[in-house]
């Protein structure tokens, strides 16, 4: 009887905490990760809400105002056709981030699916892991370039000039970047399968489908989240690399990589023009990488305890 009030006071002193509060506390203590997350939020807001405030049409050509330096009317100046650079940066950011997020989503779904299937069903393991190894041995950048070059025109006629390229780029980045996620998820699933709660769940007759969705997936969420953040970074870099090689979006449809590529033609006359898109790509990727770094520490219970 004497124990009861003791427990009560302890509960008052320490309110019940769930796992995500602990994760958030650890994440908050990583200064770089916090800065990265804040910066990424700012970029997202600027890119998706900014055009509501800065209402110049990024495709509006004002040939008399071409090649201007920074001014009040055009804070980032104008390009060789008199289009406002700030508006183009915002529009380009929308495309770059949209490509990064969707491609990451696709690769995550693929990677998780293959990882869980390979880890959970022993019969599929060998075949799926051979497939993963095969994809890891493919020369990805050359193959990406080849696929985009060859299938560009067909998809363009099917989905329209911008939609076709968007679908193609998201698809190729997605199907060439799922392998790391699949490997990590498989390893975690294999370890989870040996634990008692899985045995308990199985002993009461849980079917495989519910087993995976209720017991396995929530427990492999943390590696998936970490590879999600790193996936955004690599997808953004790949998209801008493709655009930079002239094999991405068409030039009247700005993305950060495309803007950088177009600006290199005027490197001698207007060197400052390459800085903005390059800086945008680099800072976004840097912030996402820092975020992933912090998330990895925060989601790792071994580190979190310290």
């Amino acid at each position, binding site marked *: 009887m004497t124990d009861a009030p003791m427990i009560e006071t302890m509960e008052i002193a320490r309110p019940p905490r769930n796992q995500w509060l602990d994760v958030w506390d650890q994440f908050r203590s990583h200064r770089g990760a916090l800065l990265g997350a804040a910066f990424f939020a700012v970029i997202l807001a600027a890119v998706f809400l900014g055009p509501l405030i800065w209402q110049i049409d990024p495709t509006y050509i004002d040939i008399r105002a071409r090649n201007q330096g920074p001014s009040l009317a055009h804070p980032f100046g104008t390009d060789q056709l008199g289009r406002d650079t700030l508006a183009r940066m915002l529009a380009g950011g929308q495309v770059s981030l949209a490509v990064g997020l969707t491609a990451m989503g696709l690769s995550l779904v693929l990677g998780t699916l293959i990882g869980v299937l390979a880890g959970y069903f022993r019969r599929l393991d060998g075949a799926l892991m051979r497939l993963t190894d095969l994809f890891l*041995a493919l*020369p990805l950048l050359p193959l990406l*370039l080849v696929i985009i070059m060859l299938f560009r*025109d067909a998809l363009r006629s099917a989905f329209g000039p911008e939609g076709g390229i968007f679908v193609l780029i998201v698809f190729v980045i997605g199907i060439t970047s799922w392998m790391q996620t699949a490997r990590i998820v498989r390893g975690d699933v294999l370890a989870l399968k040996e634990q008692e709660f899985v045995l308990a769940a199985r002993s009461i007759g849980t079917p495989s489908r519910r087993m995976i969705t209720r017991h396995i997936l929530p427990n492999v969420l943390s590696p998936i989240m970490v590879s999600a953040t790193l996936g955004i970074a690599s997808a953004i870099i790949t998209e801008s690399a493709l655009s*930079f090689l002239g094999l991405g979006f068409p030039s009247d449809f700005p993305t950060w990589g495309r803007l950088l590529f177009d600006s290199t033609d005027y*490197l001698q006359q207007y060197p400052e023009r*390459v800085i903005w898109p390059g800086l945008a790509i680099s800072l976004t990727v*840097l912030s996402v*990488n820092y975020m992933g770094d912090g998330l990895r520490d925060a989601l790792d219970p071994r580190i979190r305890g310290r």
Partner: protein
Amino acid sequence: MFTYTIRRLLIAIPTLLVISLIIFLVVTLAPSDPTANLPLSIPSEVRAQMREALGLNEPILVRYLLWLRQFFLYEPLHMLDQAFGLSLAGEDMQRILSWQTRSPVADLIVQRLPQTLWVVGTSYVVGVLIALPIGIASAYRQYSWFDQIGTFVSMVGFSVPTFFTGVLLIVIFSVHLGWFPSIYDTTLRVTDLSTFWLQIKQMIMPVAVLALYNAAQISRFMRASMLDNLNQDYVRTARAKGMTERVVVLLHVLRNSMIPVVTVIALGVPTVFGGAIITEQVFKVNGIGQLLIIAIQGGDVPTVQTLTFIFAVLIVLFNLIADVLYGLLDPRIRYD
């Protein structure tokens, strides 16, 4: 170990065959026409003849097998002939010809390989040489200001894409300061000290860009590997025996830490070749990467197939080398 190597080599063969099939199918099944870039004034029956002459009317499987035979049998024989003046290859053994230049693809690659090897190879060596001391020092003084700066720089190094660092270096050192040329001049022959100096000058920027990128990744691995080893019992034992700190760190810890790092370095070689595609484009180095870009833009199917497959061979080969090295360096790992 020897049987393991043999087994890995045998496993590599089907992998390479499947990869070659994938590359072949991607390029062949694509809805693009190699005669599309020809003038529209060519009548359609001539166009059909040209397609037939290019062998495009055969079934896909036949074309794949023919390509395999060309790639694995005819090309090596011709290469041997050229290298040693033999005549192993018969008259009917056709070489893989580029559709753009009508010359053998192998010759094109041989012409362009030195530039790529010089730039990429130097940058990788420089990157490793920078990364190792930085990794060792930042692990030894973990969380010191040196470690913090090193972490930040390496984070920046692999976050900033090479096409931006390259362009940035051009803006600073070519446009503003005018120290280095922004375009790599392949016709330059190194004959005396002044041309050697020119060669150095034009190599500095591309090498710096790639070296920074590689050093960023390798120094992270070096640091993590050193940290793993520095807390081990044998380190304490070595110190307890009265060995100097220098011997403990540089002889005992470093040698053990190098095992995973060496494999990472080996695994990184093929990706460096891939990444060099972008750097070659930035600095206009006419290496293999640029050849690939030109061939892709011109719809030059044989060149694209051959180059992509060579990249795949590099990846498989260096995976194999990494695995074998791991077994050789670490006596605890026995594959048999």
